[in-house]
């Protein structure tokens, strides 16, 4: 169980530090395979500190800036949970602030689950995840007309595979501008 949590934390840290992580792109996530994960986690934890220094701008063009904190658009979840972690709350706040500062911008909030559990329940669970994110965006001042929600359940995995590595990457909400 401890290991499981560690992997999760590492996954979150790695995802948080690397703005280029794109679900489904093997080369970006390969560091998380097997024992390499421990190393990647350590590096991730270190560079997370640098991550804090990313320029925070809510200018309209910031959404196109690969170095902006807004370039990170995936929020990860625990199994059968739609609770947003504290780290993810920080990320969602940036997106909420951006939407609030740019009323012309709109975002699609896509909810996903891993393959475990039943398909329609997962549609409902992923909808819950998307709604959790939507509420936080609106709490920061985003308007409801700026947000659309869709739940894909387990139908569109970011990563194929039947192990915790794939599952942890698939339990997610993606922000699609």
């Amino acid at each position: 169980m401890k290991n499981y949590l560690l992997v999760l934390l590492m996954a979150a840290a790695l995802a948080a530090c690397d703005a280029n992580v794109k679900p489904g792109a093997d080369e970006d996530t390969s560091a998380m395979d097997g024992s390499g994960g421990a190393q990647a986690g350590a590096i991730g934890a270190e560079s997370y500190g640098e991550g804090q220094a990313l320029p925070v701008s809510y200018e309209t063009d910031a959404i196109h800036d690969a170095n902006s904190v807004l370039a990170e658009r995936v929020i990860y979840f625990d199994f059968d949970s739609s609770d947003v972690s504290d780290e993810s709350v920080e990320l969602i706040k940036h997106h909420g602030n951006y939407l609030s500062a740019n009323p012309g911008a709109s975002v699609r909030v896509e909810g996903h689950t891993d393959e475990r559990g039943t398909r329609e329940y997962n549609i409902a669970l992923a909808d819950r995840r998307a709604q959790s994110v939507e509420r936080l965006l609106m709490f920061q001042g985003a308007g409801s007309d700026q947000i659309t929600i869709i739940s894909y359940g387990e139908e569109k995995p970011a990563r194929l595979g039947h192990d915790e590595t794939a599952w942890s990457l698939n339990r997610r909400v993606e922000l699609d501008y």
Partner: protein
Amino acid sequence: MKRLLSGLILFCFYSLAQAVLNIEITEGIEGSLPIAVVPFQWHGGTKLDDADVSAIVASDLARSGKFAPLADKDLIAYPKQPEDVHFQSWRMTGVDHLIIGGVKQEAENRYQVYFRMFDVLKGEQVLGYNFSATRASLRSVAHRISDHIIKALTGLPGAFDARIAYITAAQNPGKAVQYHLQSADTDGFNSQNLLVSDEPIMSPAWSPAGDRLAYVSFENGVAEIFVHNIHTAKREQISKFAGINGAPAWSPDGRQMAITLSKDGNPDIYVLDLSSKKLARITSHWSIDTEAVWMPDGKSLVFTSNRSGKPQLYQVATKAGARPQRLTFEGRYNANASVSADGKTISFVNGDSNVFRIAVLYLDTGLVQIVTDGPLDESPEFSPNGSMIIYASQHKGQPVLAAVSTDGRHKQRLGLSDGDVREPAWSAVRK
């Protein structure tokens, strides 16, 4: 907008040339009754390898889990007529029943198929039928013969002359995933493409008459429920509210459909009247309520809810304000019910965080039996006669369809297709 366009859809309504048949009985030959199916005589034409009627019957009987047909090499004779049968000798082989028959080609596309079944101990005929068939319906006639035999010997209505619908997802490297809605005979033959889309298709459900399929399609970029007539290929969009439109389930009379909608905030169960389009809300709870199925009397629904904190099965009358009663208590994850036609048993997915298996709940005693091994079994559905459960499973990491007898003793894999195959739905028997 891009997504809307990429959801562009193609209709196909043709039989696929390849009929990939790979049914493997994987567990539980013992306990099956030995039976002899003598290869049928062909008159007026040569035997058709893709419509070998007696071989189809023998395969169905074996797949039922209730019979063990003798191998051809163990048949002691090939009687053609009732008077050719020497019951004394057949008694030595240990079989209780013997089936003989034939296929007569009367014209280019006209066949007569006949069979007789004998009680070997009593030395008398117990069943005999004659069917007319076309080239295309020969396999269906064979399944009907299997259904007659099973009915006569077990009392159970047959389930083989039916169709199985399922979803496939083809992962082609460098290309978008393609989702197909297909249907096939219960032995995997005669597969037909009903819908192709590059957005997900989910939750196929047969109408009670077996002529229409309801399903969820994301082809327009959002989840919508369609009803698809499989004979005319005509489709009707029946639900496109904001949010989830999911888990369609036909009422036993085919007039209503239970669906899951989140238009009012939370996923809740609604019942849609298919002709008046009137919508009645059945559950109203802050938790997830979904995956409703009907009890055979049409008076209540069984559904999945996480109102206790974890997904469990509940039963609720189809009246506004009715109070749901919890049905499952063992295990942390019990979901996706299917109710047997007699309303006595419920199959569902039982899991903890890593292992998901198919379980059966006996409503009279409350006993739960796990009938599959997992690790990622899902989408159980009873055969129309309740004797088998078809479900989605994995074999060596590959998604496959599988079936298990309701008592868990007999198992088989149905290699219906290449690629990712899921969400099997077993139609009513053809009328």
